[in-house]
């Protein structure tokens, strides 16, 4: 259950639109089903009042949309940012990807978003409505009686290991700001590190071979904002848009993870949108964990303008051979 209500957001959006602070609003509206809430751009008060939604399925991170949105006009756009979104927002600012002046950032608190696969597992197919009641979700389906489940049990993985409830960037904050959380988000990575090389290979072979190269992970990623992606560029020598064989997926995912290494804020959008449920965040988190352990704690986006670890160095950095040993406990 979210602490801030949809009505509050609607009222705020209408106010800012009416007083001319902004002329567009990046928000959420219902998709085909109640749970596939999609990002939307609103330009009128009427549209907002009739279509704007905010609930436990509003996971989409809007930061990336600002790149295109701020290029359109000279006026301001309103964007709603959950704490984790503000990190992406800052990271994009660090990389000069949009004009800060053209954005009105409204920080909103977040109690964690629900994972629809978990909801479906609990309530079955044919979901027609989901209502938040206190700490629970009441789910109506075509086939069954209403089911009540605890919100806490439906949380998405990334929200269960939420790294921060603190907004690191905003123009205005709705509600109270939270704190950076001492999360255990690297536990899964550590489990993999403790495996043998063979086991790890088997694990990733199983996961990555499911990839269908739909590119959703790339398209949603707020760090993957290249004007032209190397995988789309025939001049890059690595262009390949289609699934080919088991290697191709590794090439794609390794390079993608490397390109966002040190820039990835661990927002978890890649795993959220993957239709094959590949735990892509485990690749990014590996880089984050290694960066923390090799070069000192670094949280991309925590501070606008900070120097990313891969465009920095010290003369005493760890040697690659030692890094590999340090990076996996089975090597010790």
């Amino acid at each position: 259950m979210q602490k801030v209500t949809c009505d509050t957001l609607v009222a705020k959006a209408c106010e800012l639109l009416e007083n001319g602070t902004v002329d567009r609003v990046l928000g959420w509206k219902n998709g085909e089903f109640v749970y596939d809430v999609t990002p939307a751009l609103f330009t009128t008060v009427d549209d907002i009042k009739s279509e704007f939604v905010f609930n436990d399925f509003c996971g989409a991170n809007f930061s990336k949309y600002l790149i295109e949105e701020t290029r359109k006009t000279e006026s301001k756009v309103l964007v709603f940012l959950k704490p984790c979104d503000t990190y992406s927002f800052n990271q994009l600012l660090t990389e000069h990807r949009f004009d800060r002046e053209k954005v009105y950032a409204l920080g909103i608190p977040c109690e964690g978003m629900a994972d629809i696969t978990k909801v479906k597992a609990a309530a079955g197919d044919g979901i027609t409505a989901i209502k938040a009641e206190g700490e629970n979700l009441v789910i109506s389906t075509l086939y069954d009686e209403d089911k009540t489940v605890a919100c806490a049990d439906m949380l998405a993985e990334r929200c269960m290991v939420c790294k921060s409830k603190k907004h690191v960037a905003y123009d205005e904050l709705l509600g109270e700001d939270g704190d950076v959380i001492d999360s255990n988000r690297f536990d899964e990575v550590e489990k993999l590190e403790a495996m043998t090389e063979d086991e790890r290979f088997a694990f990733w072979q199983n996961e990555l071979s499911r990839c269908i190269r739909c590119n959703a992970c790339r398209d949603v990623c707020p760090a993957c904002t290249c004007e032209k992606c190397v995988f789309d560029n025939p001049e890059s020598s690595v262009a390949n848009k289609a699934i080919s064989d088991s290697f191709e997926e590794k090439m794609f995912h390794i390079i993608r993870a490397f390109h966002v290494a040190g820039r990835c804020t661990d927002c978890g959008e890649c795993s959220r949108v993957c239709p094959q449920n590949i735990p892509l965040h485990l690749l990014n988190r590996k880089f984050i964990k290694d960066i923390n352990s090799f070069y000192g704690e670094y949280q991309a986006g925590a501070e606008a303008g900070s120097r990313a670890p891969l465009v920095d160095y010290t003369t005493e950095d760890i040697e690659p051979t030692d890094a590999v040993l340090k990076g996996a406990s089975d090597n010790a």
Partner: protein
Amino acid sequence: MQRIGVFVCWCGSNIAGTVDVQAVSDALQNEPGVVFSTNYQYMCSQAGQDIIKNAIAEHKLTGIVVCSCSPRMHEATFRKTAAAAGLNPYMVEIANIREQCSWVHKDMPTGTEKAIILGKAAVAKVNLNAPLKPGESPVTKRALVIGGGIAGIQTALDIAEAGFPVDIVEKKPTIGGKMAQLDKTFPTLDCAACILTPKMVDVAQNENIRIFSYSEVEEVGGFVGNFDVKIRKKARFVNEDICTGCGICTEKCPQKKVPNEFNLGMDNRRAIYIPFAQAVPKVATIDADYCTMLKTGKCGVCSKVCTAGAIDYTQKDEIIEEKYGAIVAATGFNPISMDKFDEYAYNQSKDVITSLEFERLTNAAGPSAGKLVRPSDGKHPHTIVFVQCVGSRCAACAEKGKEYCSKICCMYTAKHAMLTRDKYPDTDVYVFYIDVRTPGKAFDEFYRRAVEEYGVHYIKGMVGKVSPEGDKLMVQASDLLANKQLHIEADLVVLAAAIEPDKSARPLATQLTASMDTNDFFTEAHPKLRPVESPTAGVFLSGTCQGPKDIPETVSQASAAAAKVIGLLAKDKLTGNPCVAASDELMCNVCSSCERVCPYGAITYVDKEFRMPDRTTRVRRVASVNEAVCQGCGACTVACPSGAMDLKGFATKQIIAEVDAICR
């Protein structure tokens, strides 16, 4: 499609002994793009080069591959050959089948196979080569020297002598630097002022030299041959053009209690002052921190006594913008602070002094008019203890001392000890040393004279503690050779303080994008072969800003830096290495990753207009590489996530083609 010629060299039997050269030229004949393939005994010989030239003409070759020795050996040769035949020299690739094949392998079949693969890789690469033309940029024929000590003075004089205009920026009111504070110089014992001040006068009188004294570099932009520099000329509240340097104001100023930095605070000066008699420019400067007029608006004595009317209390800092072709850093050194050396009681006793203070004490223009006296009571000291390596060679604590040897202390201490014994034979002089380091012409002889002729007591060992007791200083030290601990009742203790780069060097290095070592000394482009150049093109190093040095070394390095500057300024145009980075503006994200990894500051951002599909124009910032500054390392190409950055001559496509050819 390229038309490629392949030329396999036998190198006598050097290659042909392990590699079947005929098989190599035959195999490469069938590679894509290859229209001609041959082999010859010595490709680098005149006859061999003629084969290449003829083939280029006959077969209309657009690229050539030479399978021969290392490109480090003959790449330049074959590039010239190609150019002579009208082919762009960068259409030449070398397959190194000697150093990296025939010389390290024994077996003919596998050696031949590897040579073929290396040849294929070179063919694959040359298929993607494009003709390259080195960029050209004009050269502003003016040099900037930052720092007006002996290093800066010498560099400026040498450049000016060659006919190029030079500006010196000095943050103090006068040029002269540390050398102006010295009394005598080792090992010849010339008077420092006698050899320095004529040079200062030369600087003042040289038409090619402008001195910006009491000024600092504010901002540096541009690149080799074309630096744009902003210089802040600090307000000295005296009109330099009018002031005659008569000095009346400095005698009449009622504010007498200003510590005199030229004498290291051992006496006082006025709020309006000329640092020393031979200052250049010889004009007065008002110290705004102490001037009553500037602080309270009441006084104005200097203005009243100045017959020239040079005093101007309303003067403001002035920013001067100038273009330069080359910049020389000559920011010099300072002795380190003695605050952390409690064991030597520097802060407790006035009679514990540093060697630079000792220089002032023995200088005729110093606070005691050249009489060696104790600062505390003005009495003549009868026992003097010199302590070497105070803060030098100190690895224990970075805040206390420096890990390096300061290089000059052994010699100046020998000088001090010798001069003291010469002038005051009734004085006992002890020098505590760890090692006496005297590598230099007539240096060891000088030190031995101090011991043998002047009877200075050199004791191997360190001083552990100095404790003031009454008007004496109790010195506790070890004599390692006698295996004794000594207790000396001294009147004066002189500490050979380590030297460190001037504090202004670090921010300056950032402005110049010149690199520094962990001690804040400027790094040279190559420690042995390019010792007076910074890795940043167009930035040169002079004097102690690069490392500890004595005067002769400083002067020779200063002249060397000047020679490099003259060499640069003598050119009308600079031709660069054409293998530089280039950004594909359409793909650039402006994320600034490339800019952050560039060691040379070669990447800037420019606003670029783009025509959009809907026929509108959109302005977007994109990275732009300055080809004159880029050295072609390629760090940016990997930092760039979109692949917008590529390196000419080592393009992503080319390297991948080589990888593919090798793994095929």
